[in-house]
């Protein structure tokens, strides 16, 4: 059995080794600055996900849970859920091992089954069994209890458990995206803060559109968003509390504050302030309210972003003549330390975001068109993942494998602005469906 198990892990691994090879080799091979259009060899893993068993009203719920899980896994590009219409027969119980033959003939490598049971009051018990079809082993079994209204979230948590068990990486499905919903004419777009699950469900608006709002970001530690608002025609950085709906201006700055992001510990907001024709980078400590200036340069220093350990800051600056990426110590430049330029390709570089894994920086590149790309933290190994008339504003999924961004596409008349995700292979681009036009996405951390 052990040998079979290893065999299974090897066969599963083969699917991902291919993907990893793409990641490992392309940076060196593609030192040149072009969108990589080579198709990767990563093959999505065939998985069967049966409707979770349930009786009465929970029969439909069990089906919906299976659908959410399948959709999550499919969108990751690493899994290929098998169409349930092809299933030979489906187990009526999850208390015994499945008929592996029925799943082997479908070439399913893994089988996910589950059961929904009503508990007292409004509570649900949701069970998962994940099977290795060829190894004939249970890979994991889990039980969750929750209130009925939380069924989507439980489905995402289960999808994360499957993703982690099979890929070895943390999942990112139990997350949300905050973004700017756009409507109205292009001269005077109405922009609203909006929030949704990463699959576009549970969508709702946080602001009413009276004031122009831009560039939201999640707190890593609290149910808070930092963003920019033109409330009272004073463009400033704000904090929005998701639980209370309270909005609070951050600090008492004499000029426009913008481009806010939280520090990795959630205790600071780093941002730019523009005043008298000069833009520098500042931080505000959210506990003491103390503000600290980090750069003092006549150029535009903006789009600051902390490394995940909080020790460095990557930002964009035109101090050398054009917009480029620089890295400085978190203590800033006013003590005499100088930021180091890391982007040297042709064109301009903007909106750097440090990967949660720490080893990669994603950015917007401008030269001719616009591209979303990634590079090492030393600027080496640039790879471009997505492009368009305008693409901008990459944001990392918490596992550092997927980026969301927004894209403007020209139409015969006007243009359309939508959110997309792309994985690190550059092969798996998906639109995130939103009720209207959408820009400035920011991915939440895994929901605690």
């Amino acid at each position: 059995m052990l040998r079979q198990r290893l065999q299974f892990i090897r066969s599963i691994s083969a699917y991902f080794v291919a993907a990893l090879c793409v990641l490992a080799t392309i940076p060196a091979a593609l030192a040149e600055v072009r969108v990589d259009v080579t198709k990767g060899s990563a093959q999505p893993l065939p998985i069967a996900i049966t409707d979770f068993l349930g009786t009465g009203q929970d029969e439909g719920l069990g089906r919906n849970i299976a659908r959410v899980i399948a959709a999550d896994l499919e969108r990751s590009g690493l899994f290929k859920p098998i169409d349930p219409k092809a299933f030979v027969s489906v187990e009526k119980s999850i208390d015994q091992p499945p008929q592996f033959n029925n799943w082997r003939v479908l070439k399913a490598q893994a089988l996910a089954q589950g059961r929904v049971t009503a508990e007292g009051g409004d509570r649900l018990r949701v069970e998962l069994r994940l099977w290795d079809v060829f190894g004939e082993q249970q890979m994991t079994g889990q039980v969750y209890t929750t209130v009925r209204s939380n069924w989507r979230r439980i489905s995402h948590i289960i999808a994360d458990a499957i993703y982690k068990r099979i890929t070895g990486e943390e999942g990112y499905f139990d997350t949300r995206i905050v973004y700017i919903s756009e409507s109205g004419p292009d001269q005077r777009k109405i922009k609203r803060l909006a929030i949704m699950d990463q699959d576009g469900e549970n969508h709702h608006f946080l602001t009413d559109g009276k004031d122009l709002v831009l560039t939201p970001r999640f707190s890593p530690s609290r149910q808070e968003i930092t963003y920019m608002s033109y409330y009272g025609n004073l463009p400033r950085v704000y904090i929005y509390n998701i639980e209370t709906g309270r909005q609070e201006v951050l600090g008492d700055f004499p000029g426009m504050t913008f481009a806010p992001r939280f520090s990795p510990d959630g205790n600071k907001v780093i941002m730019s302030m523009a005043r008298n024709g000069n833009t520098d980078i500042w931080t505000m400590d959210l506990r003491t309210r103390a503000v600290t200036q980090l750069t003092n340069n006549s150029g535009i220093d903006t789009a600051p972003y902390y490394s995940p350990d909080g020790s460095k800051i990557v930002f964009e600056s035109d101090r050398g003549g054009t917009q480029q990426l620089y890295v400085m110590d978190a203590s800033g430049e006013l003590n005499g330390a100088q930021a180091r330029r890391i982007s040297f390709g042709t064109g301009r570089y903007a909106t750097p975001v440090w990967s949660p894994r720490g080893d990669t920086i994603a950015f917007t590149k401008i030269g001719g068109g616009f591209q979303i790309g990634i590079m090492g933290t030393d600027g080496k190994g640039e790879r471009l993942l997505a492009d368009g008339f305008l693409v901008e504003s990459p944001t990392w999924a918490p596992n550092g494998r997927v980026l969301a961004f927004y894209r403007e596409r020209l139409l015969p008349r006007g243009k359309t602005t939508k959110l997309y995700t792309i994985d690190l292979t550059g092969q798996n681009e998906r639109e995130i469906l939103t009720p209207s036009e959408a820009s400035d996405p920011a991915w939440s951390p895994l929901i605690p």
Partner: protein
Amino acid sequence: MSFKSLTYVVASLLLLSACSSTPSDSGNAGSTGGNTGGNTSGTQIAPGSDRDFIVNVGDRIFFDTDKFSVRNDQRAQLEKQAAWLKRYPAVMVTVEGHADERGTREYNLALSEKRANSAKDFLVANGIAANRVKTLPLGKERPVALGHDEASWAQNRRAVTVITSGAGS
């Protein structure tokens, strides 16, 4: 009313003069075409009013791509604005800075702040008290020309002087 019909005449003149086929700023004729001047019915516009400033002076200047210094060919426009503001010392203004769509959102906010500030500095250097001039950076959020070509982008790289109080009506 005759004033209303005059507004429409001015609006269509301005639209004709804009080279883009896309009408911009519909409903706000005054801020459409920029340095059109050319109004022959100035007697209908009260001196010292918003419309006097927009139509007879010109409310905006334009910038080169990714630049924020006042272009030589735009200096006369700002000099006219400064002269008018001297004549009407109760008027307070906000200079709105703008960028075209070919830049990232946050960089464009910073760039438009520099543009608004350049125009403000010019007005101040020409004798307007700094406390009469505020700035409002708007990045690429409020384009007036909606084409996706250089002609439209050139219209959008602008600083617009907007009267906030103190003008006659």
